[in-house]
């Protein structure tokens, strides 16, 4: 057995594990969203399939799997097929650089294995941003290839919105990059160790609280969620860019949207909220002398942070009405962009005056 094949096997196993966790999270999210929305609106949410409706995602998945796959007349069949794949692959591929747990390394079969991150590349966050932009192509092409007015309008809106808010996401995290001095998410997370006052939201000399707010708002806009769900505005555009999609192709768009939510939550947790670091120095299990199990606590903290962020998505959806289109653009370019730029200036000055030790 050559070293290459061992590396390949380990990488594939890691990818399978991460994909499994992400798909499971997406399943949980589809149920959790309906439940949380229901509870916030004095309803019950799904209650029929299984006890308290907990098997609803499986029923939904089966339904979508067995549904007829309709290609509308006059649609560009190649693009119509390509679009859901183009939307889903970038959403999934970003998880390759997210550190889910502490960066232990161990030797197995003669190669070094990092169990909690698939690939620690030194341009991690740039890689995520690049693929998030490609995801917009899936939406635009899906809208265009459907040969439907509503789909096209949804796709156009999505293009404008994603370009506007992609910029703010990129600028919001520049402050963190200045403080951390690295683009690798593993290094950024490690730099935030030692208690919540070291997290970049709160960390001196330049707390990134404004950048965090900008990031949260832009992330909601980038994933086309309420209150920025103009590309799929039900009351105006039927379902926006996926009006004409059905069956598994619709499921691909759906999974892409939820995987994007999970991705931006993971990035927010890793960049601003300390990633897998606990909000106190070290880990409780580590203090008790169980250092070999400390990774479980770290992963639990990462999960808690990511899910808290996802809960914020549901909470916003239950609370806010949709923005008007001009309000969306005005907010993105005239409010978010100056705040992000100002944050970069302030952070740069602070980082220059108080250089890292």
């Amino acid at each position, binding site marked *: 057995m050559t070293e290459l094949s061992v590396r390949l096997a380990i990488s594939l196993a890691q990818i399978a594990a991460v994909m499994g966790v992400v798909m499971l999270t997406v399943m949980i999210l589809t149920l959790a969203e309906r439940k*949380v929305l*229901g*509870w*916030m*609106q*004095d*309803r*019950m949410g799904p*209650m029929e399939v299984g006890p308290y409706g907990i098997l609803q995602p499986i029923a939904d998945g089966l339904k979508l799997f067995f549904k007829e796959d309709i290609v509308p007349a006059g649609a560009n069949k190649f693009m119509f097929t390509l679009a859901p794949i183009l939307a889903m692959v970038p959403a999934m591929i970003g998880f390759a650089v997210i550190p889910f747990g502490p960066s232990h390394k161990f030797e197995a079969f003669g190669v070094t294995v990092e169990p909690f991150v698939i690939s620690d590349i030194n341009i991690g966050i740039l890689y995520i941003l690049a693929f998030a932009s490609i995801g917009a192509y899936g939406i635009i092409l899906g809208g265009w290839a459907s040969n439907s007015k509503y789909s096209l309008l949804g796709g156009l809106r999505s293009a404008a919105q994603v370009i506007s808010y992609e910029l703010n996401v990129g600028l919001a995290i520049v402050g963190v990059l200045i403080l951390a001095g690295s683009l690798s998410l593993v290094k950024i997370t490690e730099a935030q160790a030692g208690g919540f006052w070291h997290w970049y939201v709160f960390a001196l000399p330049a707390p990134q609280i404004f950048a965090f707010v900008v990031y949260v708002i832009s992330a909601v806009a980038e994933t086309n969620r309420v209150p920025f769900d103009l590309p799929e505005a039900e009351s105006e555009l039927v379902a926006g860019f996926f009006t004409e999609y059905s069956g598994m192709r619709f499921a691909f768009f759906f999974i892409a949207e939820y995987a994007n939510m999970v991705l931006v939550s993971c990035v927010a947790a890793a960049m601003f909220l300390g990633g897998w670091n606990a909000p106190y120095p070290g880990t409780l299990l580590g203090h008790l002398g169980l250092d070999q199990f400390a990774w479980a606590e770290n992963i639990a903290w990462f999960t808690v942070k990511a899910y808290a962020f996802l809960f914020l998505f549901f*909470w*916003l959806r*239950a*609370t*806010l009405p949709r923005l008007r289109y001009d309000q969306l653009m005005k907010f993105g370019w005239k409010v978010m962009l100056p705040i992000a730029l100002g944050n970069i200036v302030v952070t740069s000055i602070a980082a220059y005056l108080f250089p890292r030790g």
Partner: protein
Amino acid sequence: MERFKAWFKTIIFYEILVGMKATMSHLLRYKPITLQYPHEKRALPDNYRGMLALLRYDDGTEKCVGCDLCEAACPSRVIRVISAEIPGEPTKRYSKEYYMDMTRCLFCGMCVEACPVDALGMTQEFEWAVYDKRQLHLNKQQLLAIGDRSFPVREKRLELQHPNTAFFNVSFRHVPQKLN
């Protein structure tokens, strides 16, 4: 100062936070108003206007006298009555055939109000979804069956309720007397 307050409220998203507090309070004090419909049902009010039915007296005879007043009162022409004499009793009539096209009924209850002998009743039934809408074209037997299952307690015949009630009823002598 006022302007500063307003500006400060804007930058901390004060209105949005108030809204989020409201939704969160509903989540924490979770009291759903939903009823799981097929499993649990609402208690209907007594005057609920559900499916129409024809009624009987307690001796099993039909109340309907075939007067056509319900047909005249119906605003959407649901009811069709074909009236006939009771054989051997020239002064008494009954409805030989009685049809209701429930696809058109708007459940206003005017036929029930129009009926002089209270032969029509509105039941509490509302689950009448069918696959074939011909099934909603009901004949007299079906309407009587609905009445039988929805009104188990029946009235006595008019002339037996009180002696004076049937004073003007010319057909009284033909009816066999029943005690109680």
